[in-house]
């Protein structure tokens, strides 16, 4: 098994490197026009120069701060609403169809409205990110609390642990792996909501720089910032996914 796994990992690296090399060659040989795409190595150089000059530091910070705020709002709010709905089964069953259909409708069409309400800037972006992220956390909080083994709750009751401490000492740890799934999805969705918002209309941000680069035919800025965003997203998503896997293994839930 572990041999197969490493073989798959090697194959994966080979495929990714080969794809990048092919892209590099196609760009260098001018089969892909420079106006369309610059070679991957040049993207790295462009990103390095951007970071070294520090000219977009404010934009990078803007996106990171807003995303953190939106993700925190979705995770805390989503957990709160999820726990509340779990405690009120009738309300929960009544709103469940709304929750399950939420990601089937493009909630993003509310962004123009948020701009009218909050004006162009931070508040509209954070609200958008939180709106896109929160329901994933609600759904996974419900799922996690549902899967707490009843024997644990009964043990707590037998030991006459009060409700609050049961929640903190028993339910939360037992639901942790599923909560982590919620956190992972909430963060990923918040990033998507915020970057999409920055693209459409914003005062600053990584997404705004990419969109500006495109409009100004400034491919070095566009691809440099694009690379930065992809790297950041992959690091965050990868770290959260690894953490989730560890929790699942520890609690034997998967």
């Amino acid at each position, binding site marked *: 098994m572990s041999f*197969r*796994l490493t*073989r*798959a990992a090697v*194959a*994966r690296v080979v*495929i*990714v490197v080969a794809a990048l090399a092919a892209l590099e060659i196609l760009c260098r040989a001018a089969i892909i026009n420079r*106006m*369309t*795409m610059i070679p991957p190595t040049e993207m790295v150089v462009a990103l390095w120069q951007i970071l070294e000059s520090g000219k977009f530091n404010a934009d990078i910070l803007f996106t990171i701060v807003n995303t953190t705020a939106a993700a925190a709002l979705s995770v805390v709010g989503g957990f709160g609403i999820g726990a509340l709905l779990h405690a009120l*089964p*009738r309300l929960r*069953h*009544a*709103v*469940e*169809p*709304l929750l399950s*259909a939420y*990601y*089937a*409708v*493009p909630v*993003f*069409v*509310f*962004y*123009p*409205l948020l*701009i*009218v*309400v909050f004006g162009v800037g931070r508040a509209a972006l954070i609200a958008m990110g939180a709106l896109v992220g929160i329901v994933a956390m609600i759904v996974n909080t419900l799922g996690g609390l549902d899967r707490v083994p009843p024997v644990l709750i009964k043990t707590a009751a037998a030991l006459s642990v009060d409700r609050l401490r049961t929640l903190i000492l028993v339910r939360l740890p037992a639901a942790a792996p599923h909560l982590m799934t919620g956190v992972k999805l909430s963060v*990923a969705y918040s*990033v*998507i909501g915020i*970057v*999409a918002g920055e*693209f*459409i*209309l914003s005062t600053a941000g990584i*997404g705004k720089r*990419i*969109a500006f*680069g*495109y409009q100004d035919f400034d491919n070095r800025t*566009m691809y440099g910032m*694009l690379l930065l*965003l*992809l790297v950041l*997203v*992959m690091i965050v*998503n*990868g770290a959260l996914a690894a953490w989730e896997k560890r929790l699942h293994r520890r609690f034997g839930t998967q």
Partner: protein
Amino acid sequence: MKASRFDHVLVLAGLLVIWQAVSLLASPDVVPSPLSAIARAAALLQSENFWKDAANTGRAFALACAIGIFGGACIGFVLGFSRFATEVADPILGTIYSIPKITLYPIILLVFGLTLSAKVAFGVLHGIFPVIIATMAALRNVAPVHRRTARILRLSWAATITTILAPAALPEIFAGVRIGVAVTLLGTLLAELFASSSGVGFALIRAMEIHNVVDIFALAVLIFLFAAAINGLLHFLERKIRHA
């Protein structure tokens, strides 16, 4: 406890009451009342301009769905045929699926220009990955005894797919198709919001620029109804397939 129909109606009524209350508190210039938004939505349904936009978006959406589902299923089948290929491809596809694809739209625009093809390509970029991932997972979950039966019967490669793998995997693939269709709609609309000269997304941006909140709400209501109807239809088909 099973929710009654009454509870669902209550929730809908509650939402409308909240909407109305917010509208009264925040002034109807910022948040229009539900009645005015619904009346405007009904008026839009009778206007020629709206249908022109809807037809534009609809064409891109339908094309993107067709390409995304067909292409995704084909790629999923090719990769899913081999356990090793699945193991190699799964994390790569998962990573691509979770990145904010809007960042890639400028690249698509540079390749296709401001055309219908760009919108379609962006829709496909959204929808194809859930379909590939679901197809691969579905094939992985086909009971080994089915595969062995195919080998014992010495079915050809094509017959194995059409008579064993496809029917066994169809319900799970369909779940991926449902997600794929939803994100394809999102992708098509995002494309129009960012850069386009026609379509429902463009109408939304136009409404935002002139601060016409009633239009924004009316369009959002229509888009939500459309998306919910499609989602409901696909759910219905999925249940049919599962029980067939």
